[in-house]
C-alpha cells in the first residue's frame, strides 16, 4: 500500500521568508510524487511532479521539491514567500499498481503574514 504524510496541517510565514512544507511517503514501488495547490474557491492546480528523473524538481511560481529516497521525503520549498502563495497544499503519491489512482495527503494550509 502507498501513503503520504504531511507533517504540518498549518504553516505560517512572513512575506519574503522561506517556505518549507514537509511530506513523507510510503511506497513499495518507486513512486511518482506530486504537489498540488488549492487557492480559496478554486480547483486544484499542479505545482510540480517527480517521475524518477531528476531528484530536484522545479515547479511553477518558484516552488521546488527534492525527492530523497533515503529519507522517504518530498518536501516543498520556496526561497521567498509572496502573499499570493497563501493556499492549501497537497502532497500526492501515485498508486502505480492500480493505474492512475492518486493518494492525497491531508493538506497543509499556508498562511503568509505581511
Amino acid at each position, binding site marked *: 500500500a502507498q501513503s503520504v504524510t504531511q507533517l504540518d496541517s498549518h504553516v505560517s510565514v512572513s512575506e519574503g521568508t522561506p517556505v518549507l512544507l514537509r511530506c513523507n511517503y510510503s511506497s513499495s514501488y518507486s513512486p511518482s510524487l506530486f504537489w498540488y495547490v488549492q487557492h480559496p474557491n478554486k480547483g486544484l492546480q499542479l505545482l510540480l511532479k517527480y517521475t524518477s528523473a531528476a531528484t530536484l524538481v522545479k515547479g511553477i511560481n518558484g516552488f521546488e521539491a527534492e525527492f530523497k529516497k533515503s529519507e522517504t521525503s518530498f518536501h516543498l520549498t520556496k526561497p521567498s514567500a509572496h502573499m499570493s502563495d497563501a493556499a492549501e497544499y497537497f502532497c500526492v503519491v501515485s498508486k502505480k499498481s492500480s493505474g*492512475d489512482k492518486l493518494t*492525497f495527503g491531508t493538506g497543509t494550509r499556508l498562511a503568509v503574514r505581511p
Partner: protein
Amino acid sequence: DVKVTQSSRYLVKRTGEKVFLECVQDMDHENMFWYRQDPGLGLRLIYFSYDVKMKEKGDIPEGYSVSREKKERFSLILESASTNQTSMYLCASNRQGRSSTDTQYFGPGTRLTVL
C-alpha cells in the same frame, strides 16, 4: 487550456433525495475521476472511469454510483442523499489509459450540503 467544468458550485439537498453531480472535460481525456474533500482528510477517491461505460470503485464508493455515457461527461449520483455526504466534490480528468504520471486536471468543485 484544459477545462474541467462542474454543473454547480453550491448545492443544497434534503436527506433521501437523489442527487446528480455533473462533470464535463473538453480535452478528450480517457480518464475521469470523482473525489470528495473533507477538512483534515484531504481528497478521497470515490469512483473513476478509464473509458466510456467503464467504471471502477475508488476508496470510498459506498452510497455513490457513477455514469459515463459519453467520453467528455462523468456523472456522480447519490441515490439517497444522507447528511454524512455533505462535502466538497471534485472532478478530475487526465489522458492515457494507465499512466499515473499524467497530470490530473481538476474542476472548481461542488459544495454539497445535505439537510
